[in-house]
């Protein structure tokens, strides 16, 4: 009895309209000629031009990108290590505390994380700037990475590692030659997730950023607080399109790979 009723169709249509219409409207109005964002005055791309002239936005974008790449890379290394320790580490002193520290940041309100990190940086006398943002972002996104990677490790056939040991690998070689190549997709999606979280973060960054290290979300937030602006519409459109193209092409690539694999498996047959 799994079939679409009129009720299902209606709720899906309305639901996805609710999810996507606001973004579509935002994109449409980014091409509005008028500065009055709510009155349509004809098609124009002039806000994109003005955005590209705006040095403050470009600087902020660069800072955000640098912070994002640095913090997500650190987070991926630390998060993968943490996942390995959680799934394969066995028992060690303070294991419960460790897994608590992995899961707690996932549910922690950002204001608290931001506040506490700021107070730490002040009390150890670390100047606020890009480094503090990178440290803060790496800390909370390593937890997301470790959740993604450990869910892959849990379903990982342990006998693959044992086979590598059996064939003469040391524990580290077994990880490098067997485990890592197999969990690589999870590690990569962990990195992408960490990057997205870092590029997206406003609250924590506004606590730990210094005056010279304004990130894009901070810049956007301070300008939209005063109201809707067409440059921000243009900027949002660019960001939405980047994410949409990235996500859709990633899912198409995965889908093709899955299909090909299924075909090959079918052909291999018994």
């Amino acid at each position, binding site marked *: 009895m799994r079939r679409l009723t009129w009720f299902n169709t209606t709720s899906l249509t309305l639901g996805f309209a609710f999810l996507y219409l606001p973004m579509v409207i935002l994109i449409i109005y980014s091409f509005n000629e008028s500065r009055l964002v709510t009155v349509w005055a004809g098609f124009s791309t002039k806000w994109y031009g003005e955005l590209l002239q705006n040095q403050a936005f470009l600087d902020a974008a660069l800072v955000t990108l640098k912070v994002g790449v640095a913090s997500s890379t650190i987070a991926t290394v630390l998060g993968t290590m943490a996942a390995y320790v959680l799934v394969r580490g066995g028992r060690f002193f303070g294991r419960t505390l460790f897994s608590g520290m992995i899961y707690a940041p996932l549910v922690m309100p950002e204001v608290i994380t931001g506040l506490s990190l700021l107070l730490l940086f002040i009390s150890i006398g670390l100047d606020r700037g890009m480094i503090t943002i990178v440290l803060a972002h790496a800390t909370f996104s390593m937890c997301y990475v470790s959740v993604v990677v450990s869910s892959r490790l849990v379903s990982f056939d342990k006998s693959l590692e044992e*086979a590598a040991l059996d*064939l003469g690998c040391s524990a580290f070689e077994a990880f490098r030659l067997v485990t890592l190549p197999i969990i690589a997709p999870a590690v990569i999606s962990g990195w992408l997730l960490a990057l997205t979280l870092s590029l997206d973060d406003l609250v924590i960054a506004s606590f730990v950023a210094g005056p010279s290290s304004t990130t894009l979300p901070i810049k956007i937030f301070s300008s939209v607080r005063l109201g809707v602006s067409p440059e921000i519409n243009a900027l949002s459109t660019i960001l939405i399109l980047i994410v949409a193209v990235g996500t859709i092409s990633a899912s198409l690539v995965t889908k093709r790979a899955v299909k090909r694999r299924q075909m090959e498996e079918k052909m291999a047959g018994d």
Partner: protein
Amino acid sequence: MNQPAPTAAFAPWEDAKAKPLISFQNVTKKFGDFTAIDNISIDIYEREFFALLGPSGCGKTTLMRMLGGFETPTMGKILIDGQDMANVPPNKRAVNMMFQSYALFPHLSVWDNIAFGLRRDKLPKDQIEARVEEMVKLVRLDKFARRKPHQISGGQRQRVALARSLAKAPKLLLLDEPLGALDKKLRQDTQFELMDIQEKTGTTFVIVTHDQEEAMTVASRIAVMDEGLLIQVDTPARIYETPNSVYVADFIGDVNLIEGNASPRGDGKTILHWAEGQPPLVAECPHAPDVEARCTFAIRPEKVTISKEKPTDRTNAIQGKIEDIAYLGNLSTYSVLLANGTRVKAQTANNRRLSRRELTWEDDVWLSWTETAGIVLDK
């Protein structure tokens, strides 16, 4: 096949001077409170095909994983080639393992999977190539060497796993349920292939299986295990013909069990009183009780003859009524109900056409067997 000596002559376990390749000495393994292996001692000799047989959870896999170095004994010693294995990690043992899941590396081709272990030994490139070539030929996969594991069939994967574990020419190969993932027909073909390869390479094989037919087919000796204990270690024929306990008799093949009071007859045979008003059974008993004791008589269905008339040439003959007939094609199994409510199965080969067979449901029949056909067990 071109064998230097008949298989029957290969019996190093009967030679007191032979040195075992593997020696378990009072090995116990505990996981927390659970005793997986309970004080086991076995010797396994070179070139043996040794099977560890038992139901799941009996400790057979743990025993094998200790040989591979993936578990360490809680107590006792394991010697391989006379050397104590206590502190030798898996990657330093001349032992290789074929995993139940095959554990083929999904990101490597068949060729690279087989070459994996050789590359860890830093062998020269041409030697590695020659050896891998030899291995893919041995398991008949030369055409598939460049494929990835998901691009070949289950049977082919099994052969890759075998080739990979044999590539380093280990002294000892461990096989964990090697045929468990294959369907029945393929499994039977592969059993003979395994024996053939074992003979060609001269490697000692230790196989773990829960399939008694498989163990009987491939092994030179079988160790039957239950709940961490070793019940019996012997050749397949002796395990089948002279089991040492009801557990082994019941686990291997089909068996009729009749309980009764046994007492010695004087000439080495044992008499078993099994029901009021019925003639006692006469049988052999390896551990004959000196006094009367509660015992179980075990006899295989194919050793029981079924007939309409009472046979005159057999010591043991009892009467019953056919309750059920199972026609299996080559064989028929008759389930016969005795006067005291016991059911006994008798099996006959169907070497006549259907119309010529005379026995049918509700027929009164005689079941008979010789003095040596069955065995009285005191455990």
